[in-house]
Each structure stands twice: as structure tokens, then as C-alpha cells.
């Protein structure tokens, strides 16, 4: 699959991903001489940056980080490419000084350490040859501060028994929002949806499948829900407090957060 982001530094490169789920500071986060990761919160401490495509949400910390990236490149222990969810000045300037191809606006949580990917800094894309993209829509329904979650039945194709918001596959060139409205009608019987927000796609990884989730938020006037065969029970929950108690489909919390604030 190919993911479209934004180009930051030109150049094309292929390599293995080194992924950190948390923002990264090059000052203190990596050894400036060896390029070894020092920050344990990344989950990849002791791994080396050299030749890898380093994926993390965004940079943080001192602006000296730009100089650290430059120094790593000079010693030939810098990452071969950088992917961010949202680029900021420190890492972008470092990548420019070091000539490291870089792309942002890619949900880095969809990439895993060890993935083989191609990064195209000219076009602003990332390609994962071994991974199949499955576009889906997720509709978060809200009524007086609570959102609807449903437990998936044993008859559906994936994530049976897990809690989810209202979801469905997106076919061909279908309009995601129209599909979301359709899914809500079929799975809950609710009508008169008031559209509130659409979020940037969230990448939810399941083995070699990448669910590209298009999140939507609708307000609904009623909590009276009529489930179809796809789900077996439903709850109206307070998203901030209660979501953690349920066994959900991957990244439901991030999908909800993408449209709720």
C-alpha cells in the first residue's frame, strides 16, 4: 500500500523501519557518536539509527537536536529516512542539514519496527509493499456527552467480540461520509444525524492488513438503538473515563480522540 503525506526533505530511500510510539528528542535520546537509541520510553533503546527509516510522531526538546542529526549523518550513523506524524522545526532543520529524505503527515502508529518500506521525499509518500490497505469508516455517535459503542457479533469478518464504534468497509471511490451515514442507519436504525467533525485517517495495523480509518463524529437526538446482525450489544459511555474498560478494536481511542476535542 502507498500512504500519501507531505514532503519535507527531498530524496528517495528504502529501508527497514525503526518505530518509536512516543515523541523523540535527539538531544539525550540518541548517542550522538554511535546513533544508538538511549531513550527507553521509545521501546527501541539500544537499536541503532544507521540505515533505518526512523518513524516517530514528532520531535521535541532542545533545538541543538538539529546539530545532533547533522553530526550523525557526518559519521554515517544517521537514519536513512525520517517519517513523522507532524514535523516541527528541530527535526526538519536537522534533516535538511543532513540531507535525510523526510515525509510527514503520516500516522506513524501504523508503522512497525522491521517493516520494509520505501520513502519518497520528492512526492511525500511512504510505500509498504507487504501490507494491504483496507479503507474503513468509523462513525462516533454522541448524545449528551456519551458516545455509542457496540460489541461485534460472531458473524462479522474481523475483530469478533470486540467493542467498536459504528464501522464499515469503504468500497471503491465511495464518499466516506456518505458511507458512514449509511452504516449508522443499517447498524443502529438512527436517523437525523448532525455531522460534527471528520478526522484525518488513522492507521490501525493488524498483521499485514492496514485499516485506514476515516473517523466521523455525529450528534444524535436519541439513544434508542436497534442493532442489526453485525453487533450483539451496545452501551453509551463517557469517552474519557470509560473506554479503557472495554476490549476494543485496535486504536478506537485514537479514532475517538481524532474527532472529539
Amino acid at each position: 500500500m502507498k500512504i500519501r503525506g507531505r514532503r519535507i526533505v527531498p530524496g528517495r530511500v528504502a529501508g527497514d523501519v525503526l518505530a518509536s510510539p512516543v515523541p523523540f528528542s535527539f538531544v539525550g535520546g540518541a548517542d550522538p557518536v554511535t546513533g544508538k537509541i538511549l531513550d527507553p520510553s521509545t521501546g527501541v533503546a539500544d537499536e541503532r539509527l544507521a540505515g533505518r527509516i526512523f518513524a516517530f510522531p514528532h520531535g521535541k526538546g532542545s533545538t541543538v537536536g538539529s546539530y545532533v542529526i547533522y553530526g550523525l549523518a557526518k559519521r554515517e550513523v544517521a537514519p536513512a529516512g525520517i517519517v513523522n506524524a507532524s514535523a516541527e522545526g528541530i527535526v526538519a532543520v536537522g534533516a535538511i542539514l543532513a540531507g535525510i529524505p523526510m515525509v510527514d503527515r503520516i500516522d506513524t502508529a501504523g508503522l512497525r519496527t522491521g517493516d520494509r518500506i520505501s520513502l519518497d521525499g520528492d512526492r511525500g509518500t511512504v510505500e509498504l509493499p507487504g501490507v494491504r490497505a483496507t479503507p474503513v469508516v468509523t462513525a462516533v455517535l454522541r448524545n449528551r456527552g456519551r458516545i455509542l459503542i457496540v460489541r461485534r457479533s460472531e458473524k462479522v469478518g474481523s475483530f469478533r467480540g470486540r467493542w467498536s464504534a459504528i464501522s464499515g468497509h469503504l468500497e471503491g471511490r465511495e464518499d466516506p461520509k456518505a458511507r458512514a451515514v449509511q452504516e449508522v442507519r443499517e447498524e443502529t436504525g438512527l436517523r437525523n444525524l448532525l455531522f460534527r467533525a471528520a478526522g484525518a485517517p488513522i492507521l490501525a495495523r493488524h498483521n499485514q492488513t492496514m485499516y485506514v480509518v476515516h473517523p466521523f463524529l455525529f450528534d444524535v437526538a436519541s439513544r434508542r438503538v436497534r442493532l442489526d446482525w453485525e453487533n450483539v450489544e451496545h452501551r453509551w459511555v463517557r469517552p474519557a473515563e470509560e473506554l479503557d474498560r472495554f476490549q476494543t478494536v485496535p486504536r478506537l481511542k485514537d479514532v475517538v480522540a481524532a474527532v472529539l476535542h
Partner: protein
Amino acid sequence: MQILLALGSLSEAERLVRITSAHVSGASYKMIGDPGLEFLEDFARDARVAVPTTVNPLGTDLAQWKELGIPPDFAEKQARIARAYATMGFRPSFSCTPYLIGVRPGLGEHVAWAESNAVCFANSVLGARTNREGGPSALAAAIVGATPEYGLHTDEGRKPTTVVRVTTKPRGSDFSLIGLVAGERVGEGLPYFRGFHGSEEDLKWLGAALASSGSCGMFHLDGVTPEARRAPTKGLRSMTITRRDLVAAKRSYTDGDEADVIALGSPQLSEHEVREVAHRVERTPPRIPVWVFTSRTVRDANLEAVGIIERHGGRVLADTCLEVTLLEHRFGTVATPSGKGAYYLPSLCKQRVILDDIERLLERYA
């Protein structure tokens, strides 16, 4: 140029604007280490500044490092950093207060300054326009002579976000305390202060603290700062800072019991402040050292005051400042009236802090 264009597109700036001056941070070897030194020396082979540019403080006083017990390796690398900047055409100011040594951009003038206290002063007190640049972006702006136009360069970006009413009459280190409290509360916002007045020096301390505990690059002060009158405040969120808040802040930023040194800087002291310290020290001689940080320009022009302070066991250091200097090997607990100092010393220098007025500190350690 590539750096500026990339930063411009990250911030969705539509164009670059010409600047009349730049001020770069990232000159202390303690802060930028070998990666910074290496980059600057490489860069200095070709790069030359296009506009008058000043540089932030170094990690030690270049003239007094031996007496300070600075390791020769540190001093040597520090001198190389200073040389690299000089080669690129920077004015060797080594000061965090360019506005006290003659660099005073006027109302509406675009500049590219790093060093958060200088940014806050330039925007708020002078009415010049700069974003909070980092070392590398200010360096790029200095070489190109331009900076991306967004944020505090635009009228929109200079509008206040919060009204902060101060109900107590501040004096001395109260200005630092107001800055610390307001910064914590407004975070990335732009505060519009009401209810007090202050001199340029007072506002320097306020801005430095505000830009430390918050990431503010500017404030307005009703009836004092040049853009306050036209700043729209209608319908803004409002908050109040009372004497009780200031007392609580002083307590929360104080974690030391007995000071080893009274340190005055962060930002560097003005000529007037250096003379005042000399006067106070003469009147109330302290039993612990008083270290004063100022610019080389101010030190050289006030040798009489310097003599008084040093005769009373103190030191007046130039080229460097409180947190970026190497002093943690000498003193464990630092007493200071600086809010910015109190904010950074525990993390950057692993030191304990006593935050209080200069008068109170001199009395306590008389």
C-alpha cells in the same frame, strides 16, 4: 534558504520577510556540546551573515575561565565556538540582552531572534516583530537576511488571548513571580496584563520568567507597552493574579535551605543594575559570594562597580550567564531573584534554588 523555506511551509507562512537584525542562541559549549561545535565550524567555512547579528552567552567568561576552575578542554572548545561565530561575521556580544547593548529594533520592525527573554522583550517592550526562533533557524535567517512571515510577524499573531489582572503592586522579584505564574497559566497564549506599571528593567524580568514557565513570545501591559492600546481584549478569557499567588510561587520555586552563592543574572544585568548591586553590596557586605552576570560591554564600561563587587568577595562575569555557565561544580544551592534562573537551574544545572529579592538575600547573608 532551504531551511527557511521548509520552516515557512511547516508554519504555513506565505512568504519570507526581510529582517534588520538577528540574534542567535546556541553558543555555550555546555549546551550545544560537540555536535554544535562541529556543525558551527563546518558551517563557518562558507556561511556569512547578511544582517547585523548578535550571539547568546557562552559557557564561561573568556577572560576569567582559569580563575573559575573551568577545565582547559571546555575552555578551548568554547573558544572555538566563539571563533566560528566571529568568522561568520557575528558581533561577539555573547549576551542574552542585545536590547541593553544597543540593538533596539523599532516598532513594527521585523527581526529574527532566538533566546526567549530577548524575543519577549523585543516584541512586548520595543514593538519589534520576531517569532521564538531556535538557534538553527535564527542562524539561517542571519545568513539569508529574511525569515518566514507567520505568528508574531503578523497582526493576527500579536493579539492577546487572555487578560491577566494583577491585584497587587509588584516590586523587585515580584515581576519575575508574575511572569512565572502567568506563564504556567497561559502556556502558549499571549497575555494582556492589567493593574500595574513597571520600568523596562522590571519588564525584562517579567518577560524572561513568562517565556520560561510558558512558551509565550510576547505580552501586552495596559498603559505601558506600545501595542497594548490597540490590542483587542473584548470577550477574552480573564484571570487574576493576587499577592497570595506570588507568595505561593516563590515558595514552590524555592527548594534550597542555605545558599552557597547569590547569583544575579538570567538575563544579564543592565548597567544601572550592576551599579545598584555594587551600591547594595557596599552597604550590606555579604558573607557568601555574589556573582553578577552581565555583558562584556556593560562590564568594561563599569569597572568601578565591578571593583566594589569583587572587593567584597564577588565576581562580575561577562560573555556568559547563569544557567549556561559551568558553575554547578562550585555551588550546590543558588540564591537568585531571577524567575528564569529559578525555573531552569534545577533541571539544567541540577542545583537547588532560593528565589527571593536581592535586598532580602543580602540581608539574610550579611
